[in-house]
């Protein structure tokens, strides 16, 4: 639990950390969309190099990115098994009994693996270099044009920031309750099915109780400070775009256009 890296902010002083969150979110969206075009290995190579440059600039360790990807390995193995059973085109790689593995099964799994890998790299770049608070400021600003069509931009941003704010707390709480129950002899790893259900129950019930308690406390604290969702609010921090932010967005846009080009014409 303690080494969850997906979506964690890494405090560091780097050019990427200092960038405007809006620019980073837009750039991420461009590149994410770009990944969905079938741009072949060259296209993915280009994206990989571009993202790697950002990672190096952001002073993130490759081991950190790797840890963020680890949970996906299980999913990919699962995918490979399904693909191997379902896809029956391409060359036969080898045959065991009545089962033969086709090259397309491996290729299509690899294709998805590369896309997933890139997506995780890109989103990790954003979350690791942007403070959760800045992120919600950025999201709120980006959603502002949509308030015209009754999208509650501020409320959505507040919701996200509260959710993000409580993730570490809930992880900590879970660990605490786990330890407390382990001290009472709960074995979360071993045991019969009935014991396991009991063990999970002993974790979930207190977690729910404390989560609701926290939510109520927070709601009261917000109301006590006069928070009203619909009101017009001023802001202490005003986001400002700089040259480098435009450069980042432009670079991402170029990648997107390039990928569309490769997918359409090559």
């Amino acid at each position, binding site marked *: 639990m*303690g080494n969850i890296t997906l979506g964690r902010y890494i405090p560091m002083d780097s050019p990427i950390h200092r960038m405007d969150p809006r620019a980073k979110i837009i750039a991420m969206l461009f590149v994410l969309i770009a990944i969905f075009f079938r741009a072949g290995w060259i296209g993915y190579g280009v994206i990989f190099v571009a993202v790697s440059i950002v990672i190096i600039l952001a002073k993130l360790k490759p081991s950190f990115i790797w840890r963020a990807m680890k949970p996906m390995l299980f999913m990919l193995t699962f995918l490979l098994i399904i693909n191997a059973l379902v896809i029956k085109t391409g060359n036969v790689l080898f045959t065991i009994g009545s089962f033969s593995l086709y090259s397309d099964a491996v290729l299509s799994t690899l294709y998805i693996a590369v896309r997933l890998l890139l997506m995780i790299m890109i989103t990790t770049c954003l979350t690791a270099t942007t403070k959760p608070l800045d992120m919600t400021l950025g999201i709120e600003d980006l959603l502002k044009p949509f308030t015209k069509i009754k999208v509650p931009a501020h409320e959505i941003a507040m919701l996200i920031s509260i959710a993000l704010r409580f993730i570490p707390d809930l992880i900590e*709480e879970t660990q605490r*309750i786990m*330890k407390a129950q382990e*001290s*009472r*002899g709960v074995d979360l790893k071993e045991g019969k099915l009935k014991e396991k259900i009991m063990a999970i129950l002993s974790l979930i019930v*207190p977690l729910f*109780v404390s989560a609701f308690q926290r939510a109520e406390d927070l709601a009261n604290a917000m109301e006590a400070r006069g928070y009203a969702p619909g009101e017009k609010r001023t802001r202490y921090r005003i986001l400002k775009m700089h040259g480098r932010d435009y450069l980042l967005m432009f670079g991402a846009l170029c990648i997107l256009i390039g990928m569309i080009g490769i997918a359409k014409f090559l």
Partner: protein
Amino acid sequence: MQISFQHVSYIYNEGTPYEYQALNDVNLDIQEGKITAIIGQTGSGKSTLVQHLNALLLPKTGEIHILDRVIKASENPKQLKALRGDVGLVFQFPEYQLFEETVLKDVAFGPKNFNVSEKDAIKRAKEALQMVGIKEDSYEKSPLELSGGQKRRVAIAGILAMDPKVLVLDEPTAGLDPVGTKEMMQLFKKLNSDYNKTILIVTHDMEQVFKYCDNVVVMQDGSVKVHTSVDEFFRDAESCEELNILPPAVIRMKKMLNENGFHIEGEIKDITALAKAIAKEVKHG
């Protein structure tokens, strides 16, 4: 010696940017059958230290000898499960661990995990609830219906029902009212004197240390700074103040009296003893 730490170090989040050394070469022998207070500022490693006692945390280096068992880095936690029944650990705000439908079931949950039969577990639960002063008419209530102080008692009963030989309490009285605090501390004292349990208490309250504990361990920056008897520790106010610890009121009073012409020597355990000493001085003076 029943419990001994030998060169124990612990590091949180090793190898990440959040790396933090919580314990640094701790050597400590804790006396059997006594109440030992563990004090120190927030972040000094008290909670980390006590979580080693029932192998919730395994040391990165060094080893811990406890009740004829050895806890060390290479030990498989599975083999240490039985240890958790012998060393009862009560966390800060333990009321959060309550989850069963009824108070009685929740208290019986611990012993049942250690393969005590249903019938015996209920029996032990009732005894434990009686010890902490929960009345019989609450046994069938949901633990969530109880007041804060009662929840705390039920949670502590949940550990007592396991009948541990060593009881470790991490700030057991935080957030309780003065009456509740006093009853709680008297319960621990009774468990120590009547049931001969070794007790460790993490606390910030010097009055409690002074009044109820036998020995005191001062933690500072992940190391043991001082380990001595309570009487020795509070003999003079100066040594406490050096460690940035406010001595108990009686000791402060003694110091102020001595600074203003009194000569009160020897151990003063409580306010009555201080009053007698003053009376003696006044008579002779």
